[in-house]
């Protein structure tokens, strides 16, 4: 690869990592408050469809993003009601949400196509133009820096902004610290007067909403605004893996997402004569993640580990 190719490769990696970044951030928000939601894939699928239809009917990028967020949050609300109030098993509920969400998105897409009587659903040109890479006059034209920093579609910037805001939320605000306290030890947090249930709901829904935006990315950018079934295609599961890789830290998630994105792109850039099969590139993120998971438990580090109460429901009477 020559220098120009490397720049293109890095830019492509960042774009490719962005949907995973949304999924990861959403799941971090959820896990920080003590809930392992395996429904990321489903919430992304629902977000994708809602975002797509909102964009299709209103022709507005902003409304599409809001719809994707709202739909993801609503899907997460189902999970929240079942696990927070009804104390259902988190693994089972999350998996159900994935089956339901992916099914619902596929179903609705099929239904919309039939009832509109079209062969394929495609976003109108106006909105497709809005989500193309933003070209800032002057800045985007600077060599190297231009393509590296100022050549992305709006999702990329939005993802980074959300990550920074979340890092601020968890580390610098009282609310964020309270939320972390809930994730570590809900009984203690409750005893300290923190409204455990309320913040669990807020975080679970917020997390789902962020996942929903990631879903919108898959349909608007990866599939270039054409609706297809199974559009999320496993990115939700990679997101769950990335949470471990990023050790529950929104800032690390940014870099993790771009590394994962790079691995997803690498196979198109490394000449096939090098002889590494494509499947190996796809496998690497999961292998690294597994190693990270093992290392964290061997070191028994409390700092970079999953929030202590994650996966366990909180029952007030038993505190």
């Amino acid at each position, binding site marked *: 690869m020559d220098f120009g190719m490397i720049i293109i490769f890095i830019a492509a990696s960042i774009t490719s990592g962005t949907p995973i970044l949304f999924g990861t951030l959403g799941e971090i928000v959820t896990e920080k408050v003590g809930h*392992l939601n395996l429904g990321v894939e489903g919430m992304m699928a629902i977000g994708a469809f809602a975002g797509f239809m909102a964009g299709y009917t209103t022709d507005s990028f902003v409304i599409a993003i809001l719809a994707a967020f709202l739909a993801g949050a609503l899907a997460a609300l189902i999970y929240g009601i079942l696990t927070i109030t009804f104390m259902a098993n988190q693994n089972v509920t999350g*998996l159900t949400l994935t089956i339901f969400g992916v099914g619902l998105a596929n179903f609705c897409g099929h239904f919309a196509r039939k009832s509109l009587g079209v062969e394929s659903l495609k976003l109108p040109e106006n909105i497709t133009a809005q989500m193309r890479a933003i070209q800032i006059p002057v800045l985007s034209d600077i060599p190297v820096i231009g393509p590296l920093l100022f050549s992305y579609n709006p999702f990329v910037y939005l993802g980074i902004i959300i990550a920074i805001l979340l890092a601020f939320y968890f580390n610098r605000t009282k609310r964020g610290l309270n939320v972390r306290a809930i994730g570590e030890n809900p009984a203690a947090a409750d005893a300290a007067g923190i409204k455990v249930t309320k913040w669990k709901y807020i975080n679970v829904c917020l997390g789902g909403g962020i996942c929903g935006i990631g879903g919108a990315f898959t349909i608007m950018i990866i599939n270039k605004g054409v609706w297809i079934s199974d559009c999320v295609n496993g990115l939700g599961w990679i997101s769950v893996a990335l949470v471990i890789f990023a050790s529950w830290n929104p800032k690390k998630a940014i870099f993790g997402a771009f590394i994962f994105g790079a691995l997803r792109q690498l196979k198109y850039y490394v000449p096939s004569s090098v002889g590494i099969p494509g499947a190996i590139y796809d496998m690497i993120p999961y292998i690294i993640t597994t190693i990270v998971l093992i290392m964290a438990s061997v070191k028994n580090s409390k700092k970079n580990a999953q929030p202590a109460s994650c996966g366990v429901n909180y029952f007030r009477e038993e505190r």
Partner: protein
Amino acid sequence: MSKSIGKSGKSEPLIRTIKRAELPKNRALALRLAALFLALIAGAIFILSIGNNPFAVYTTMVKGAFRSKLAFQGTVKIMIPLLITSLGITLAFRMKFWNIGAEGQIIMGAVFASYFAIFHGDMPHWLLITVMIIAGMIGGGLTGLLPAYFKAKYNTNETLFTLMLNYIALNFVVFLREGPWADPTSPGYKKFAIFPAEARLDKVFGIHAGWIIAIIVLIVVFIYTKFTKQCYEVDVVGESQATASYAGMNVKRIILRTMFLSGAICGLVGMIEVSGNAGTMTEGVSRGVGFTAIIVAWLANLKPLSIFVIATLFSIMEKGSSVVESTFGVSEACADVLQGIILFFVIGCEFFIRYKFAVRKKGGKA
């Protein structure tokens, strides 16, 4: 941790949750049936909202699964992997070991079994089938053993570990298909070789013999969970590892043994699917069964006979949906949506079996 304190919790919340005394079995069953009924109504509203007649759709779904000999055979074919996988997962779940990795265990079972079908297809039929069954179980078992080892030794989170193994296994199969195991006789698109006839499960009553294996596994797991000391140990470890250690049980060994068995049963599914169903190896061998099975096992309360019932219902729903698709022109994903709705209700109803809400009375006492 923050020391900041919100409003202090002086007042009791208006509605609070309290634990129930154990419900009698028939009341619990009645609650579950009520949840199922409500779910069907919610599903009916969903079907109505897309302009179809819910009764017609539901009847078609059930009839569709049984309307012909071929349809019934299709239903059984869907049921075989689901039933066996659910039974396999149950062992781990009883130990509160959250094995989300059945997908990967099925895939690795299929890989191990396929090795003999692809490279040693000249063995006599019965020997080859036996070897493939054993290989499949070892493949799945080892895949289950890996996270179990790290769980027992370092308390590594098994939910996430087994989840990662699913994707490692999946990509491993793609790697095999595109490289070392690619069929040299197939031009263009790379795929695994079709298995020789010696490596195919025999058909009994028109369906591959996987159904017989499924019944055997059901009986064995039933006896194992009901009558053996081993499974008693599993239940104790599930309740409390501390209690188990105190009682002199070798907790690590129990975790390893149980996860090997759990994975081995899932690996068996991989063998059945490649040998009985597809006749070749594919990366789609598990088709999400590993995930659906978790839900089946959970809904059945980890009881083998209930698993049989729930797996049957799921298979009818899935087979029936393909008929609904062709009859009403709705997407096949309809099954997933209805399944999801029903599951949400049933999962929610478990709460009312174990807990109830109490409304605060005047004077602050509930």
